[in-house]
Each structure stands twice: as structure tokens, then as C-alpha cells.
């Protein structure tokens, strides 16, 4: 599916990266702890999180994350938006809670970038 379809499913607002909505996505990872994202997320996935500081964008950049989805209606700080624009990483904001966001995407075919931990390297 494309980022545009993700936007529609989540009734999300696109805060950064309107020009990148045709990007394809198949997998996602969800966490508020960036060290866990660094430990387990895979490239070309969505990052679902409630954290809004610039470190989310840095983490996404380091891992080649396709787009950041902020859940629970969170809005990023100005610095976060600026960095995302600079690094060309889309940010979408949805009012759904993390559980609903994950469930709605999973029901439409987006899967976890890993299923469970242990021996995934």
C-alpha cells in the first residue's frame, strides 16, 4: 500500500512530506522507546510512536524509516518538523491511539517488521 492509503486509513494529517505520499509501505514498528526502535525496527517500515522530539526523526533517518506516524493526536515540535523537512522524512499525525493505529493498519495488510524478538538478526 502507499503512504496515501495509510493516511486515509488513519484519517491522518500530513505534517511533513506531502510530496512523498506515493511511497510504498508493507511493514511497521511501534514503540515510544527509541533504543527499542534502533534494536528492532527494519528499513522501509513505518514508525508508529507517541514521542514527538527531534530524536524520533534522527532515529528514523538512521534506520531508513519510510515515514513517522504520530499517534494519540500528538503534534511535533518546531525543531522536529524542521529536521524532518531537512532529512525528507514524512510525518503524519493520527488521532487514533497506538493500539487502534496498529490494528487498523494490520487489518489492511501492513505487518510487523519483525513478528517477535529473538534470533532476528
Amino acid at each position, binding site marked *: 500500500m502507499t503512504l496515501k492509503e495509510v493516511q486515509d486509513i488513519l484519517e491522518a494529517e500530513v505534517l511533513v512530506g506531502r510530496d512523498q505520499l506515493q511511497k510504498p509501505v508493507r511493514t511497521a514498528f511501534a514503540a515510544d*522507546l527509541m533504543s527499542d526502535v534502533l534494536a528492532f525496527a527494519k528499513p522501509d517500515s513505518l514508525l508508529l*510512536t507517541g514521542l514527538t522530539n527531534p*530524536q524520533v526523526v534522527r*532515529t528514523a533517518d538512521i534506520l531508513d524509516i519510510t515515514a513517522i506516524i504520530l499517534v494519540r493526536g500528538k503534534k511535533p515540535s518546531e525543531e522536529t518538523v524542521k529536521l524532518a523537512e531537512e532529512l525528507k522524512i514524512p510525518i503524519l499525525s493520527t488521532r487514533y491511539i497506538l493500539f487502534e493505529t496498529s490494528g487498523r493498519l494490520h487489518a489492511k495488510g501492513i505487518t510487523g517488521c519483525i513478528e517477535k524478538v529473538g534470533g532476528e538478526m
Partner: protein
Amino acid sequence: MRESPKFEKSFDVEGGSFQNAGNVSGQIKNILKDLGVSTDIVRRVAIICYESEINIVSYAKKGTITLAVTDNAVKIETKDEGPGIPDIDLAMKEGYSTATAAVREMGFGAGMGLANMKKYSDHLIITSEVGVGTCVKMMVMNFPKLLHPDLPVVTL
């Protein structure tokens, strides 16, 4: 056997500068991409740099991250002027942390940093002196990580 690096550069990292944390790692990632290092290796080095950078920003007064690229490996060496680590084995334990609230607000400080650095590098050596600072040498071999996700940590 030691080979002379085909690329080497040191970067300064300022302690407490949370807003800029990740800047150096981003630069290192771009350098490696430009050098034509494979995507998987670039990502692993970027992750260990980023965790290292977060550690320096979180705990030290200042530090440096040095990148050296050879034909066979990418080496990262970090040195900081920080509090030092009294018990390295304990610090390596997943979940052990001495992080402040500011660090946790960034989405770090859950005791995963050193564990992640170990997970993504092929070799990792930590030396530390309490009250002086910490040095971490990491190497990512320039071929896919093979059968040993749990390489031993060498403590000097």
C-alpha cells in the same frame, strides 16, 4: 593484521547538547554512503554511532567519535570526558541505566544503548576510568554478520 584506513575523521560531540544529538551520526552515515559501503553495514554503523552519541550527550562533558574505514571493516572509536563506568559488566546488562529524566524524555535511557552497540558491532572493547572517561572501540566487518549475534565483550 592492521591495514591503514582509506578514510579517517574525528567528530566532536558536546555533552548535554540534546537538541543536536544525532548530528554526527547523520554525517557519518552520509560519508559511508558516499564511500559506497553497503546499505546493511551503513545502517549498523549508524546505529552504533547514534547510541554512542546519545551516551556522550547524556553523560559526558564532551567527547569525540572517530570513524575509520578500511577495505575490510568500519571502525568507530568513541572517547569521552565523563564520569566513567564503575562496573562495565553491569552497564552492559540490558535494562541497567543511570539515565536522567532528560535522557528518558528523548526516548533513551532504558539501558539498551551499550547492548545495542554490542548487538550491531562485530567487536566491541570498552575501557573506562571512573572520574576520567570512557573509551569504546567498535568494529563492523565489511561483510554480513554471520552466526554469532552474541559475541563476547572484551573488557580491558
